[in-house]
């Protein structure tokens, strides 16, 4: 006789109860499908973003400029890098400094250069260039096939007039990759024009840059901290997260970005998988419920709990094995459809390795969801199963009623005696309510921008030298203001608003204590003592100890300056102040301060005025200035770091929340201020040496010193927005007319906001954008199209809303389905009771009442965690929602919970009506 195995028992069970297993199979199929679909979509989102960014910055992780530093062999053997490519720069265009060059085979792959038009150069005399390079060389009208005559300066060579045929237009890349370096060395940037390796110059050399990829699991921060090689000064990391060159790029930051990118998929997938799990658990519970007597019998004839779990668990695993291929295929199909609808967002990419997490997650779903019902079913005693002693035990504390409403009492008892029967559905309704909450807050959180907002913004990309805190100089793009004037003349542009930042100074007899640097000491988890310097003048950056040095402290700092970078910095500042004093013949302290010159709108600033008032006439006449004097708050974090805040108005600062608060007790309306600007003409003349020497003396001597005496019209605090200027520490603010009246020399503007007359059509927008881009490229200004950015944001928001709405609808439908099917199952098993109740005179209304209460209790229970979550989300420290709208959301949630319950009640009524069509005797007999 053949031996009967547990698997054979499980198989027989499935064959015997095919219909009952369908819902369990659907639950498992759904779990596999959702796991596959969300995993592939998350992967596709990552790939899609990476491919988009690789168009901008290639597939490299880092590049090393120049021939210096370690050899290729050293780079390869140090273990931090994997692939190395070489970018050869042979010359620069004379006027713009833009470079030409070519790649070796590996660099060609890593740079991922694509062509907008034409082809790559193949022989000497051919050139392919980025459009921005052509614009900067005033060749924006050049087309593929044109002959370009350029004056080239070969690296370490002599100028040559060269004639090239333009064979291709390259994608824009150097804009994202190049960083400005203060070096005289030639060819120290990546080429924005490509030539053939055969290109020849009479006298000249090559600058070879290396593009690198990290070894697996290596990050830029690890390279910077741990790489034993001296990589030199000209090393730049490349982030494919942001699509630009970066100076630091930690694994945590990457992980955070990754999470934020795929977060929606993770949340969406997790919520859907949770619903699938609830479905599996409910189906399993119901299935095992039908087999109560079988389980009792199996226990009675000697099956152990483990064997019971294995028999019924094996059924779930068999169904999972059957559902897996179908679910995976369905998931792949769904991802393909999603990818077809949003090709930019989700790239369809099948990676066989993804099957491992898909199978793992699906298995986890089945395992987790089936465990509880299996344990529950297997942990009962044989007679307990047969006589339901669990219910009798729970009934121990029942109160016997002598008068009651039968439907309410029966329903109440059901809730009391079978408390977990509705748990799955309550969870599902809670998910419905939670997704509604999120949907509602996302919709209500969409801000309608008050007033005008700029359509475009042009930002300076480094035309002003501002490293010396006392002065500034132009780096050579003198025509920026001239170009900006053209913007206002573009058809459709209503107005422009500029913000210009000046490295100015205040001349003071006595430096106020408000400027004093405070120390905040903290200990990290690793036990390191950290010392943070906080002051109102430099906000969270520069230390101002030097302003308060006694002669002994200065001597001490000078003695330490060779070994202590902070002391060195302080000493340099004192020395430079001395040079300025001697140039001007003054004795006051020269205190560096930012001066913002902007087109001011008093109404926009009114809410931030804490003292005085804004008088436009006096501002424009140069008689008054505004002073931004923030309250600086700093608090210690558990991690050892410091948390800063400068955007809180004085009357809103809560001292007990911060470890340190610096109050403005110095700036007041009407007080006189003596301002000084030191303006140079050419940044190239800024001395390169790091110590104060004759060079700096000559530099300050050559500068124009503009001094003006003004008074403070109003003191501002909090978070005023001034044409894109970011306010941190103390800042002097004036209008453009005021600056002119004071005689200040204005460097190139930091930010230009462009406002349009009307909302443009797509064609008008393209025309204006192209004109602005050309002006911006010539004037070394980057362009942000806020119309497009807002459109993208709105589209993203819309996507979020659609996904959340879809989720809510899905959860709603699943909740109602689960509730109704659960109650239907219960009605089926209660047919005899229903027959009895009918026989003793119960009508449909009364029978519905018996099943209605648990549904409402379920909805009410689902509402509780949702409201708790909402309450927790309102805690300021969490800030889950920008703004909470409890007055709107709580009634909506209550109504929705009611709707779910009503829909379920309607379903139950329909089901009971069907049962009642049959004669009572059939109910009683359970035919």
């Amino acid at each position, binding site marked *: 006789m053949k031996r009967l195995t547990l698997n054979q028992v499980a198989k027989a069970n499935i064959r015997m109860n095919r219909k009952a297993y369908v819902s369990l199979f659907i639950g498992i199929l759904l779990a596999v499908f959702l796991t596959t679909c969300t995993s592939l979509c998350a992967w596709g989102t990552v790939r899609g973003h990476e491919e988009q960014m690789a168009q901008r910055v290639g597939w490299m992780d880092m590049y090393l400029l120049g021939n210096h530093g370690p050899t290729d062999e050293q780079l390869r053997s140090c273990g931090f890098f994997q692939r190395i490519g070489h970018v050869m720069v042979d010359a620069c265009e004379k006027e713009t400094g833009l470079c030409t060059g070519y790649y070796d085979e590996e660099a060609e792959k890593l740079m991922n250069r694509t062509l907008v038009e034409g082809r790559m150069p193949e022989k000497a005399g051919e050139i392919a260039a980025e459009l921005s390079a052509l614009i900067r060389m005033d060749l924006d009208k050049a087309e593929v096939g044109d002959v370009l005559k350029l004056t080239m300066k070969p690296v370490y060579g002599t100028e040559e007039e060269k004639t090239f045929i333009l064979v291709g237009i390259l994608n824009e890349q150097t804009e994202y990759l190049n960083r400005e370096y203060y070096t005289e060395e030639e060819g120290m940037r990546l080429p924005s024009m490509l030539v053939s390796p055969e290109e020849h110059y009479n006298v000249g050399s090559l600058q070879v840059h290396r593009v690198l990829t990290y070894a697996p699991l290596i990050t830029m921060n690890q390279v910077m901290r741990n790489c034993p090689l001296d990589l030199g000064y000209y090393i730049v990391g490349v982030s494919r997260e942001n699509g630009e060159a970066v100076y630091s790029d930690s694994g945590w930051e990457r992980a955070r970005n990754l999470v934020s990118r795929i977060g929606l998929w993770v949340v969406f997938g997790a919520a859907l998988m949770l619903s699938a799990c609830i479905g599996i658990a409910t189906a399993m519970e119901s299935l095992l419920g039908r087999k109560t007597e079988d389980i009792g019998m199996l226990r009675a004839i000697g099956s152990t709990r483990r064997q019971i779990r294995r028999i019924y668990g094996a059924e779930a695993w068999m169904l999972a094995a059957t559902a897996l291929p179908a679910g995976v295929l369905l998931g792949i199909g769904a991802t393909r459809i999603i990818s077809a609808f949003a090709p930019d967002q989700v790239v369809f990419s099948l990676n066989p390795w993804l099957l491992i997490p898909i199978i793992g997650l699906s298995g986890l779903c089945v395992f987790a969801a089936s465990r509880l019902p299996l344990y529950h079913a297997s942990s009962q005693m044989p007679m307990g199963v047969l*006589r*339901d*002693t669990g*219910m*009798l035990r729970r*009934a121990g504390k*029942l109160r*016997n*009623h*002598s*008068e*009651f*409403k*039968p439907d309410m*009492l*029966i329903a109440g*008892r*059901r809730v009391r*005696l079978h408390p977990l029967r509705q748990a799955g559905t309550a969870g599902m309704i809670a998910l419905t309510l939670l997704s509604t909450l999120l949907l509602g807050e996302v919709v209500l959180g969409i801000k309608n921008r008050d007033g005008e907002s700029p359509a475009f913004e042009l930002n300076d990309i480094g035309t002003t030298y501002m490293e010396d805190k006392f002065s500034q100089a132009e780096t050579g793009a003198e025509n920026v203001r001239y170009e900006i004037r053209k913007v206002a003349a573009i058809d459709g542009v209503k107005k422009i608003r500029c913000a210009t930042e000046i490295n100015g100074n205040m001349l003071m007899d006595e430096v106020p204590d408000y400027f004093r640097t405070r120390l905040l000491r903290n200990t990290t988890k690793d036990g390191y003592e950290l010392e943070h310097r906080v002051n109102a003048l430099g906000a969270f950056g520069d230390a101002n100890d030097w302003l308060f040095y006694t002669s002994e402290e200065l001597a001490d700092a000078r003695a330490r300056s060779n070994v202590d970078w902070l002391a060195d910095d302080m000493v340099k500042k004192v020395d430079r102040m001395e040079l300025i004093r001697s140039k001007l013949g003054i004795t006051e302290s020269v205190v560096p301060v930012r001066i913002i010159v902007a087109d001011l709108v008093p109404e926009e600033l009114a809410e931030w005025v804490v003292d005085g008032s804004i008088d436009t006439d006096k501002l424009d006449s140069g008689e008054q200035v505004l002073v931004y004097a923030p309250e600086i708050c700093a608090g210690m974090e558990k991690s050892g770091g410091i948390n800063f805040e400068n955007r809180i108005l004085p009357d809103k600062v809560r001292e007990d929340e911060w470890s340190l608060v610096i109050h403005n007790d110095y700036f007041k309306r009407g007080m006189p201020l003596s301002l000084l600007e030191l303006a140079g003409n050419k940044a190239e003349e800024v001395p390169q040496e790091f110590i104060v020497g004759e060079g700096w003396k000559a530099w300050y001597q050559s500068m124009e010193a503009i001094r003006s005496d003004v008074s403070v019209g109003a003191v501002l605090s909090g978070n005023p927005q001034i044409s894109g200027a970011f306010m941190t520490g103390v800042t002097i603010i004036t209008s453009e007319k005021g600056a002119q009246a004071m005689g200040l020399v204005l460097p190139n503007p930091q930010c230009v906001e462009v406002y349009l007359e009307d909302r443009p059509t797509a064609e008008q927008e393209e025309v204006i954008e192209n004109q602005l881009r050309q002006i911006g490229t010539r004037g070394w200004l980057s362009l942000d199209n806020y119309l497009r950015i807002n459109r993208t944001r709105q589209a993203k928001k819309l996507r979020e809303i659609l996904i959340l709405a879809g989720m809510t609808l899905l959860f709603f439908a699943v909740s109602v389905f689960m509730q109704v099917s659960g109650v239907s199952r219960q009605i089926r098993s209660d047919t*005899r*009771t229903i*027959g*009895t*109740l*009918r*026989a*003793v*005179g*119960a*009508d*449909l209304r*009364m029978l519905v009442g018996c099943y209605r209460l648990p549904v409402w209790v379920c909805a009410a229970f689902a509402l509780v965690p949702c409201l708790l979550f909402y309450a927790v989300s309102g805690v300021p420290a969490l800030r889950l929602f920008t703004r909470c709208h409890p007055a709107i959301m709580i009634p909506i949630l209550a109504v929705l919970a009611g709707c779910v319950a009503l829909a379920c009640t309607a379903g139950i009524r329909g089901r009971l009506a069907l049962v*009642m069509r049959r*004669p*009572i*005797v*059939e109910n*009683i007999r359970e035919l």
Partner: protein
Amino acid sequence: MEMIRCEELMKTYGSGTGAVHAVDGISLSFEQGSFTAVTGKSGSGKSTLLHLLSGLDRPTSGKVIYQDNNLFQYNDNQLSVLRRRRFGFVFQAYNLVRELTAQENILLPVMLDNRKPDEAYLKRLVEMLDIDERLSHLPGALSGGQQQRVCIARALANKPSILFADEPTGNLDGKTGREVLTLMRTVSSELGITMILVTHDLGVAEQADRIIRLEDGRVAEDSGKGAI
């Protein structure tokens, strides 16, 4: 005085050559306060007749006249009201609501009718049935005999005009069965209730005033005068 009667009552399951006539044109009348036992072999149609008389099932044809009205002209709600006010039913399998205690099960028809229970009557009833100590227990905690007594108490709780009992002693041992039957009879005669009982146990049937024996859905023998 006639309490209930049926005319040409017929119940057929299936159709064509496979049709089974469970009740085949029975016409009977039952006097008020009488105790009638319906007997017969298994499948003779006795339970079906009881279900048709009590309105628990609908006939293929024929009438059941109660207080000059045909039961099957009533809609479902009217029938429900009639059942809870005028009829009592004792099931062979007790059919108690398992979530309600014995007392709540007994009170169920009264409460369904939104009436105040007659506490003195109910107290007497449960004392007579000897279940006053078990009133706060759920059916699962009661023995078969106790459950049957609760079922009888429930059937009598609304002081019905007619008590229908379908094999009320079928699941009980001989002694308990006799006790239950005596109780039913005592209570019914005290309250003047018409009792129609289905049984295949001749010992039980002999206690009735009238015995009707069915065979293949027809009346084979009627000891009383109620036959039309």
